[in-house]
Every structure is written in structure tokens, then in C-alpha cells.
């Protein structure tokens, strides 16, 4: 039933949405849209956007992210942003660091104004609280503060912030989000540490002597995360550590793809457009299709958000993240994490 209703709703939305949007840009029968109702500077190059979503917004769990799409130079760009607000907030927030030369973050910092409307996907992600919430250590660096902040705000709401330690590292004093720090310090009497400079294992040892007894959630720049993850690993505590990566683990994908013996081009037939392309060898199908001039929709490019999911009518592909091989007809695959092992028939229409 679900399947019968979805396309019909989509068709109806296609006809009626433009009319609804003549009245209010956030109105839609099917799409989650949100108006930016406030913009706050948290620190140098770090900005919070307060969103008023339409009724399609289904909320989020603390620590989850949402695909946000904006129009940059006429092109729709979708990026994932962790929600920094507590679940259930009437106005969810995202907090965005400006990436030099970044399209989405650049647009949000330079062009977005109050009243602008952005499109949202559905919140998802596994960087969420487990059963054990009291003996918690939240460690963040830079914009990685966002999911940790959401978790801290959620715990404060539930009166469970007192046994939690929150460590945040900014690259400089100017990059330290002072208002957030004050807010957190106002919520709990101890355990809030805002530091400047790279967060090393020694720093953690000094700030949180009992770190090894705690369940730790970590999000920050990749070098910092790698260094700390090694530390946990060295102590045999990897299972006590949960991490969230903002940037694609590109080297990982590439390395794995590089090991493959298959390096010849494959033929891909796009069933919707009734066209065939030869794809040169590339780490992923998404990159190969892009190199061939196609523009499949994508979001995270790392196998999280499912935006790039499309229907494979036939052929063999391997998922580089899960290692799973799909050889059956009519299976859904993710373009951004899949590699073609044979000629394929794809329906990119499903992916748009």
C-alpha cells in the first residue's frame, strides 16, 4: 500500500506544490522544507541556523544528522549536518563551520539570510545515546561539537547531565564558541572543559582521569579522531568508543578499491533514459558516473544517508563499506559506496 501511495502523492505534490509555494515557500505535500528563522554567530566561521520546518519534519534523536539541500550557483547541493538542538525542539538548529571554498557551507555563511527556505531530508545516524547515559564522556573538536551538543542538551533536559564530562577543543580562542560554553556551564556544575589546540591522548588523560571507565562519544577533525581512536584501541577499549565522521573516509574507500583486480571499464545501461555509457575504472560507481557526465543525486558520499540509492536492474556490484555483493536482479544499491564488477543496468530515475 505504501508503494502505491508514494508515487501518487509525489505526482500530486508535483502539480500542487508550485501553487502551495506561491503562498508560502515552505508548503509542500511531500517535501520537508524549513525556513531559516534566526542566524547566530557562535564563533569565528561557526554559525547556527535556527530552522522552522514544515509539518513533514519528523524530528531527530540526539546526535543524528539531517541532509540539508540549498541552491548554490543554480545547482542544488545537499550536505549532511548534525542537529545541534535537543530532540523535540520546536525550532531545530544546525551549526555549520565554513569550509574554505566549500559550496554549501560557503552559501550558508555568505548568502543565507533569515527567511530563506532550505530542503531537508530525514534525520538519521547511529551516533546516538545507548542504554548507558550517566558515565558518559563527550569529546569534540571544531564543528564536531554539534552532535555532542545535541546529546548534552538532551541529557540536561532529562536531568542526567551531572555525571557527564564534555571536552571540546577549538583551534583558537576566536574559534571557541563562548555562548555554547556558558550555556553548558549553566546546565551543570562541573565537567565542562573547553580547550584550545589539538586534543591529544595526554590532554584527555589530564582532563578526564577516569576516561577509561566511561562510555565515550567522539566527533571532530579526522586527525584528532584517528589519534584518539588509536589511544582507545591501545587500551583495548575500542568497544567503549563511538565516533562520527563529518568528512568522507575517502582514503579508506580508495585503498580498498585499489586492491581490486578489476580495473577495466564497464558498460552501464541507464534504463530510464534508454542510454548506455562506458564507465572508466573509478573507486565508486558514483564517481564513475560523474566522470561520464551523469549527475546522480547524492548526499554524504560515504554510505550514510541513502540519497544515492538507486535500482540496479541487473549486474554485479560490491559495496565497499559492507563488502556485500549484489548479483540479484532489481536490488537497490548505493552508488557512492558501490563498485561495478560487471556490466550493469541501472535505473537512475529511482535515485532522483
Amino acid at each position: 500500500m505504501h508503494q502505491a501511495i508514494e508515487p501518487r502523492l509525489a505526482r500530486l505534490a508535483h502539480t500542487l506544490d508550485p501553487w502551495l509555494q506561491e503562498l508560502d515557500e515552505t508548503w509542500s505535500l511531500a517535501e520537508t522544507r524549513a525556513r531559516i528563522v534566526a542566524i547566530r554567530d557562535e564563533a569565528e566561521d561557526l554559525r547556527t541556523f535556527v530552522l522552522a520546518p514544515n509539518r513533514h519534519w519528523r524530528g531527530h534523536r540526539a546526535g543524528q544528522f539531517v541532509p540539508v539541500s540549498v541552491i548554490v550557483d543554480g545547482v542544488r547541493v545537499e550536505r549532511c549536518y548534525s542537529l545541534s538542538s535537543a530532540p523535540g525542539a520546536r525550532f531545530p538548529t544546525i551549526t555549520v563551520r565554513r569550509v574554505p571554498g566549500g559550496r554549501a557551507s560557503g552559501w550558508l555563511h555568505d548568502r543565507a539570510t533569515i527567511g530563506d527556505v532550505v530542503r531537508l531530508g530525514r534525520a538519521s545516524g547511529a551516533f546516538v545515546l545507548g542504554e548507558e547515559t550517566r558515565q558518559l564522556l563527550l569529546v569534540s573538536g571544531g564543528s564536531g561539537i554539534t552532535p555532542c551538543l545535541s546529546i548534552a542538551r538532551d541529557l540536561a533536559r532529562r536531568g542526567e547531565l551531572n555525571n557527564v564530562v564534555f571536552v571540546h577543543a577549538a583551534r583558537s580562542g576566536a574559534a571557541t564558541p563562548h555562548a555554547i560554553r556558558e550555556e553548558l556551564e549553566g546546565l551543570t556544575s562541573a565537567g565542562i572543559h573547553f580547550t584550545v589546540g589539538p586534543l591529544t591522548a595526554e590532554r584527555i588523560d589530564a582532563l578526564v582521569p577516569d576516561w577509561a571507565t566511561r562510555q565515550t562519544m567522539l566527533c571532530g577533525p579526522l586527525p584528532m579522531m584517528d589519534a584518539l581512536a588509536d589511544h582507545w584501541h591501545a587500551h583495548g577499549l575500542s568497544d567503549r568508543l563511538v565516533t562520527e565522521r563529518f568528512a568522507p573516509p575517502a582514503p579508506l574507500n580508495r585503498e580498498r578499491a585499489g586492491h581490486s583486480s578489476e580495473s577495466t571499464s564497464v558498460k552501464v545501461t541507464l534504463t530510464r533514459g534508454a542510454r548506455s555509457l562506458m564507465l572508466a575504472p573509478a573507486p565508486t560507481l558514483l564517481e564513475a558516473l560523474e566522470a561520464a557526465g551523469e549527475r546522480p543525486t547524492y548526499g554524504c558520499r560515504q554510505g550514510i544517508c541513502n540519497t544515492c540509492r538507486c535500482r540496479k536492474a541487473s549486474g554485479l556490484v560490491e559495496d565497499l563499506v559492507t563488502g556485500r555483493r549484489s548479483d540479484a536482479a532489481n536490488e537497490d544499491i548505493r552508488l557512492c559506496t558501490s563498485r561495478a564488477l560487471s556490466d550493469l543496468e541501472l535505473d537512475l530515475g529511482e535515485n532522483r
Partner: protein
Amino acid sequence: MKPMNQSTAMIPTKPSFATDTATRAPRRLSRDEIAAFGAELDAVRATVVADLGDRDLAHIRRMQKLARRLEATGRVLLHVGLDPVSFVGGVGALSVAKILNNMEVGHNIMHGQYDWTGEPDLAGNRFDWDNVCAAIDWRHSHNYEHHTYTNIVGKDRDVGYALLRIAPEQPWNPTHLVQPVSALWLALTFQWGVALHDLRIEETLQGTQPLRTLATRAKPFLRKAAGRVAKDYLLFPALALWNAPRVFAGNLLANVARNLWTFAVIFCGHFPEGVQTFQVPEGPETRGDWYLRQLNGSANIEGGRLFHVMTGHLSHQIEHHLFPDVPAARYPEMATHVRAICAKYGQVYNTGTFGAQLASVARKILRYALPPTAQLEAVASS
């Protein structure tokens, strides 16, 4: 420079060449020149593609909005009005809405001209239009067949739409004697002509297409046409209650107006005198060859900005055929460069006023209604 070496890949069929462009024949280019010609056009394309951005997205959004608002205005005027003035206004608004929807919006989006925006509702392979021709059929017959095999007699089925004889190398048969009338009929019912065209009914009649294939081909068309007919001739008249006949007539007139207009624009794009038809290329065509064939197989119509928009920029048929997936609103600026390149390589850039091009098409339809002179003489001498 290498010795002049005529392209083998694209030979204009001689009779059309001789009769139509006797006065202004394009210069024959060497292989090297054809390659250089192609490279210059590629550069024009690259410059515009690199510059695509906010204003192109804004343009297509504005056109969609205009078409939507005109459609609403037209329908309201037809539904609630009682007087002839609001009837004429309603028909006018609805006609313009349908023309914009089919040409500047639908035709162009379905070419994938806005795929680069990543906007799901502008995706060329998903878009559908207010026309009885099913989008899926159109993408195949137009985007693929017509744009790939432009004006190759026997491969591009748009040459005369399998109904009219507009090139001497199309075999004559007695039905062509009445083609001035068939052309007029095709003009009035153009959307049906285009839609039925994809079903290849003539092939089934000739016994080359099994009935079963025809039935499969007919499915998307029947579904689409049923929906369109129901909307314009049942649903909206029914909603208008006592005004039903008025709404029925208004919708019919708007569809006819759109048919006449699109017919006129499209026939001026490929069938005026001077436009060449081609034989099936021997061997592979290079990009330069393809460009040259597109140029020689198309003709432009001169006009102002509003006129260009109303033709969906098919008034720049030449640029459209050279760059089918570049947003059409960019054709006027590209035309300046294309003309200069044509002049540099001694190529004919076929353009004229709407009246002149239409008259030229009409002359051709009349001329080729008659059998070739050889056949005529044979008949006369017997």
C-alpha cells in the same frame, strides 16, 4: 595544410543541394577544417556551460511560474466568464500557457538542459508535459532519433513526419498530391500527429511492424492521451457546469492554437529551402561532421526576445541542434559566435523572418507534392 580531402562521412544528397542552395552553397571543408570548425563550436559550448548558474535556474523557474499563472488565468476566465471578451482572453491566456509549457519549459527540460541544476523536478528523464505525446516516447523519437540522425532521410523520421514529401529523395506517391491539405490538417492536430508518429502506424500498415509491437508502443500514448482528453474535454467542462460548452470550446481552441504555432515553428526549423537532407553516413562521423550536419540541417527564425521565448528558442534551431542540452535561453548569445564561425568557414547560416521561412516551407510542400520531373515527363510523353 593537408590536401583538400572531402568528408566522406556526410554527403549532402545532391538534388536538394542543387535545387535549394544554388545561389549560396556552403564551402566544402577539408578534414582539418571540419575538425577546427568543431573545436571552435566546442569552445562556444564550454564557455556557456562554465557560466551556467543562478540566472539560468531563475529563468526556467520564472517561465514555469508564468505558464502556471497564465493557465490559471485562462481557465478562470473561461469558467466564470459569460461574455465573448473574457472568452477570447481566456483562450489567449490558455494558448500561451500551453505553448510555454510545451516549448520553453517542457521541450527544453526534457532535453536535459537543466539536469545540471540537480533539481529533481527539472530532471530531463522525469519531466512530463501538457501534451498527448507521452514524454517517454518523445525522449526516444525526438531526443534520440531526431537529434542524432537529424535530416538523414530514412533514419530521421521527422523528415516530413512520414506524411509529407519535403525532400526530392523521398519517393513520391500519389497521396503526396494532396499534401497541401494534409499539411494543414497536420498543423491543426499537430500534438496528435507527433504522438501518433511515434507509434509507426505506417510500418504496421506496410507489414514491417507486427501488430503486437504497435500495441506495446501505443500503451504510453493511450494512457497519456486519455488523461489529457479527460482533463480538457470532460473534467474541466464538467466543473464549469452551465458553462461547459464554453469551456470545452475554449480548451479546444487553445489546443489548436498551440498546435498551429508549434507546427509553424518546427517546420521553419528544418524544412525551409536551403536546408539540406542527408544520406546515411558512410563510416563514423566525427564531432565536426556531426556539427556540420546539424548546421546544414537546420534553419533559424529572426525575431525579438518575446518571440524567441514563445518558440521555446526553437527560433534558434541551429544553435539548438548544435547544443541540444544547453539551456535554450542561452542560444541568442551563442548565435553571435556561431554566425561568426560559420562566416569564417564559409558555411551558410540559414536564417530569415518568420514570414519568409514559412513561405519557403509552403513552396516546398507545394513543389514536392508533384512527382519528380523525370516521372512527370514520362507521364506527359505517354
